[in-house]
């Protein structure tokens, strides 16, 4: 039995594929930024908070890291509805991805914070810097720089995992693909194309993160240290 590949049936849909890719990038960008903020704050809370804060953050991180994103997406989507609040699938997807990647960010940033030597903090204290100033200038910034490669990988994984939100009909690349394949009956070809688009997106994202590092971490640029 032979199968004839027919990509031409997909040709009229190129604007849809493109639009799907844009939506996926948007969704990932929002979740990356929000998740980074949530995760960094959690990491600081875990390192320097009251025992209650530490326990809450630890529980959050463990629960998220030990359950599937798919189930988290369902719980958040239906859970918000149970509370009587109507949210779009897209918003629920954004929240779920943020909550998810926030937990991973917390663990990564925490490792970074731990790598900053006490003597650095002591030196900053002796210069009269306040606690928030010390956190920002002496602890968090160098810590982020140190764990930047891990964060990059995590956020690329997040972009790929955002495909899961198609399961609650959030609008993104995989949902678009599902629609196209049911309209063209060319499932195999559709998913090959979409797979390639994701591959391109992950390269683009890595490139963007490297470019950002070049701009943000001047020491690396000047000394030529690779990330």
């Amino acid at each position, binding site marked *: 039995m032979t199968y004839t590949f027919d990509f031409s049936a997909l040709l009229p849909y190129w604007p849809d594929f493109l639009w799907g890719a844009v939506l996926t990038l948007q969704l990932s960008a929002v979740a990356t930024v929000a998740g980074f903020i949530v995760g960094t704050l959690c990491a600081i809370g875990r390192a320097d908070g009251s025992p209650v804060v530490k326990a809450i953050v630890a529980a959050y991180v463990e629960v998220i890291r030990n359950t599937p994103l798919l189930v988290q997406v369902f719980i958040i989507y239906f859970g918000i509805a149970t509370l009587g609040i109507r949210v779009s699938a897209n918003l629920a997807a954004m929240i779920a991805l943020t909550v998810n990647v926030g937990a991973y960010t917390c663990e990564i940033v925490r490792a970074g914070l731990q790598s900053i030597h006490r*003597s*650095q903090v002591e*030196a900053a*204290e002796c*210069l009269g810097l306040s606690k928030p100033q010390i956190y920002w200038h002496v602890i968090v910034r*160098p810590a982020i720089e140190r764990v930047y490669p891990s964060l990059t990988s995590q956020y690329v994984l997040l972009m790929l995992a955002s495909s899961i939100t198609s399961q609650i009909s959030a609008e993104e690349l995989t949902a678009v693909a599902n629609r196209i394949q049911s309209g063209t009956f060319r499932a195999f070809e559709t998913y090959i194309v979409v797979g390639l688009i994701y591959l391109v997106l992950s390269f683009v994202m890595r490139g963007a993160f490297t470019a950002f590092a070049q701009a943000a*971490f001047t020491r690396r640029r000047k000394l030529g240290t690779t990330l």
Partner: protein
Amino acid sequence: MSPVVKLRNVHKYFGALKVLEGVSFEVERGGVAAVIGQSGSGKSTALRCINALETIQDGTIEVCGHAVGDPKLDRRALRQDVGIVFQSYNLFPHLTVEQNIMLAPTCVKSIGKSEARDLARDVLAQVGLSEKAQQYPEQLSGGQQQRVAIARSLAMQPKLMLFDEVTSALDPQLTGEVLKVMEDLARGGMTMILVTHEMAFARKVASQVIYMHKGQVWETGPGSMLDAPKTPELANFVGSGL
């Protein structure tokens, strides 16, 4: 003239370990006090207590009008008056030399960027490293890093400078350039307390030598006291040190 630093009967314990047992001394404005003694004699701890890096269990410490032992002490105000330089430099590796120096003036004193840059230029000239402003710490030698650390403290225009074994991690050759900077500072009238192993430097520059032994001030006097120790312990220490 009232003393800048005044320690009265200071006690410090780490658990059951008694590190300082009734330490008292004073340093006048413009004075240079060299604290010497074996490792474990409590000299570094005494220095750290002056800057409130350690809390004391008994006694009083007064530094530039701040009551350091007081629980209500405003540490940030104290630290604007006191600069400290550590053995391990503790420069911020992610910042350039200039940024290291500008950080505290801009953050703590809210000085404008351009003014802070001028300040950085001045203090770098003072330690003889004007051309290194745009370098990163890891591009500098140990001696240069330590001079930057001194400049970083000076940029806060402190009334008192503390030096905690600042040359112990350096080769003899690099030690010289750091001591030279400290000597210039002393000559410029800076009040300084230095914990050091450099006997020759203490004898030459210090207005007052404090020999610590077993957590106490064992013997104190002018630099010349090193030539004629009164106690057998100091005689022994000087003998082994030279």
